[in-house]
């Protein structure tokens, strides 16, 4: 319904392939998608662009800060930011931590794109 041009999505994942397809799919659906493989860069983009939705990969061994810390810093900038965590079944403690730092939802890898669509629709109350 909210067919605004301003619908911004930030995707943070240390796997470049994931960042790329998310960019391609969601820009086709009318989103302005920003992507990075680095947690610190993600925080910078968030400050500058203030995206409506942020997808954060919890486990990012190649990034100076991991997903949970990225979430924490983003929430410090905007405590209402909608953050969806992408994680694995085995990282139960990180899922729990993300919940404490105010994440809105989590998704288990590997997930179908339809699943991501559903989560975005539910937590961000947007339609596309």
């Amino acid at each position, binding site marked *: 319904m909210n067919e605004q041009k301003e619908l911004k999505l930030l995707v943070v994942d240390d796997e470049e392939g994931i960042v790329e*397809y998310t960019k391609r799919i969601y820009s086709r659906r009318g989103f302005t998608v920003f992507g990075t493989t680095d947690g610190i860069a993600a925080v910078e983009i968030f400050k500058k662009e203030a995206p409506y939705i942020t997808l954060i990969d919890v486990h990012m061994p190649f990034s100076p800060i991991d997903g949970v810390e990225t979430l924490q810093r983003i929430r410090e900038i905007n405590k209402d930011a909608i953050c969806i965590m992408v994680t694995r079944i085995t990282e139960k403690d990180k899922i729990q931590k993300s919940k404490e730092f105010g994440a809105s939802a989590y998704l*288990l890898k590997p997930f179908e*794109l339809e699943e991501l669509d559903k989560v975005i629709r539910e937590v961000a109350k947007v339609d596309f």
Partner: protein
Amino acid sequence: MGTFIVTKNKKSPVNASFFLLAFSSFIWQLGNFFILMSTKQNLALFWVKFAFIGIALIPVTTYQLTVNFLKIRRKNFIIILSYLIIVILVIPLSWTKYFFSGVYLYPWGYWYKAGILHPFFLILFATYMFIIFYKLFKVYVKEQSTLERMREKYILIALAIAYMGAIDYLPTYGVKIYPFGFLAAIICTIIIGYVIYKYRLMDINVVLTRASIFIIVYAFILGIPFWVGFRFLSWGLWIFPVSLMAVLATAGPFIYGYLRRHAEEILLREQRRYQHALRELSKTMTRIRDLDQLLKTITSSIVDTVKVSFAAIYIREEDYKSYQLKHCSPAEEKTLFQEFISLEHSVVTMLSEQKRPLLSEEIGHQQGIRLDAGLVVPCFMEDHLIAFMVVGKKFGNHAYASDDVLVFETFSYSASLAIENCIYWHEIEDRQRQARLQEMDTYSYSLAHEIDNPMQVILGHATLLKGALSKANLTDAERKEFGESLDFILECQQRVSTMVEAIRDFGQKATGEHKPLNIEEVVESFSQLYSPQFKANSVVFQKTSQLKEPVFVLGEKPELMQVLVILANNALHAMTGLKEKKVSLNLELAHHDWVRICFLDNGYGIKPENLKIIFKPFVTSKASTEGTGMGLHNALRIVERHKGRIWAESEGQGKGATFFIEFPLAKDVKPEDLEDKEKSRRLF
């Protein structure tokens, strides 16, 4: 000597009758001594009559000893009758002049002079001796036990020597010959005494050879100076024989030793050969690190070099509280041995107490251990009986002589060392393997983790392309074709992901916390995990279920999966070499509130006697390099932790095996207790 033997074992009738024989010989020899020492005819005649008491008793005491030695029963009557005849008839008669008409005077002294009745006694004496010899010989020929045979041979030889004592009768009838009989009597008594006292005898050929060489050598050494002395002393050249004696006496032991060595080398060539072979084996076997190979080498070398009917080896297994048969050569004989010998078995007790190899005759008949005329050799490590070898009878039914036993005893020391060495190496290798496995474990776990990312990329991009297909400028056929290609990619991605998930489930650390699990999900995860293995071994795997609704058990998923993995590993091994390999798994309810998993393969099956022991640790049908023998034991422990039960059924070798596992159903399972597998997303 008789007194010595009898004090060794007062209750033995053999020892008692030996005492009687030795005693009568003693009277005879004492009499003879005084006859020869006598200076007056009357005195000599008295000693003749005294000595004859001994002589008269010899046939009956020898007979009694033989009867006791051969354990012939119900001959007491004859023995008592014989004693009566001798004591009541013969001895009193000997005091009359009809028996001994007087004494002869020979250059060496007085001697018996036979009267009219004496020949009758001679006949009686000869008859007894003949009967005794005949009886012994008859038993000797039929004897089964090689050791008994050897003992009988000794007695026969001793008797043959004793019969030479009959030479004493010649001067009794006026033939001028020195009565050497005492020598025969002494040798005979010594031999018989040795046979009774010592259980393990030296090879009699060796004994006789040694004795003959000794007698000949010393006859020369002592004889030559005497002869020389007789010839030259009269000329006053005493220094010559004395120095000759000194020289010969010094040389004597060397000559004796030299001759003895050479004679024995010829006599014991066979024994020396295998002693040498075993010594060589002792040197090399401590270098063997694999216990299985070591035991195989030991048993087959013993059979080949010592030429025995079989050799088997038992090793102490703490986990079973028993000794386990580890190797047997030739392998066909294995079926004749009991696999486990308990720590309390009487053979084990005997070996631990005596700490030396024991002959089968010493051990007697034993349950579960086949000895036939062989030897049991213990292997000790600081007072602990770590193993023992059972060695069969020697080729050609030769008995084990004391030298043989000694060789085995020496051999057992190096064998103990080699076995200990192998166990030590095995432990080290085990630890290293454990460490490697642990590393592999972490590695595969993180691998399973890292696969998620590329899978997500494949999934995402393939989905992206699928969406783009509809908008692309393509013909319908092309669109369909490319769509199918993308479906192939997605399907494979799906497959890899489920396998990885199964590995992840399997690799989870056990927490000890039991949660309700859908048994079908457990089985599904197992088949996902194991399907690559089944495929690689071209096994047809079939999974069926008779369950009408989801059924839950309390447990840990990785552990339950492990049980199935263990069974699958064993099934794969049991089907090696088969053309058609089939494994099937069925789920059904049992006794209302239990769930049963039947795991069936068409492999080589399990022998009925092994059905009970397969769940014990270290039991394996695999070669030592392949399995630890812990698989089914671990499976049992897991199942028991889950309050379940596991057992195997098999119709025998070649007919496949079915393993049954049953678990009690979890009651009152609430949906929130369940691990949510279906839901890959959740809103906070």
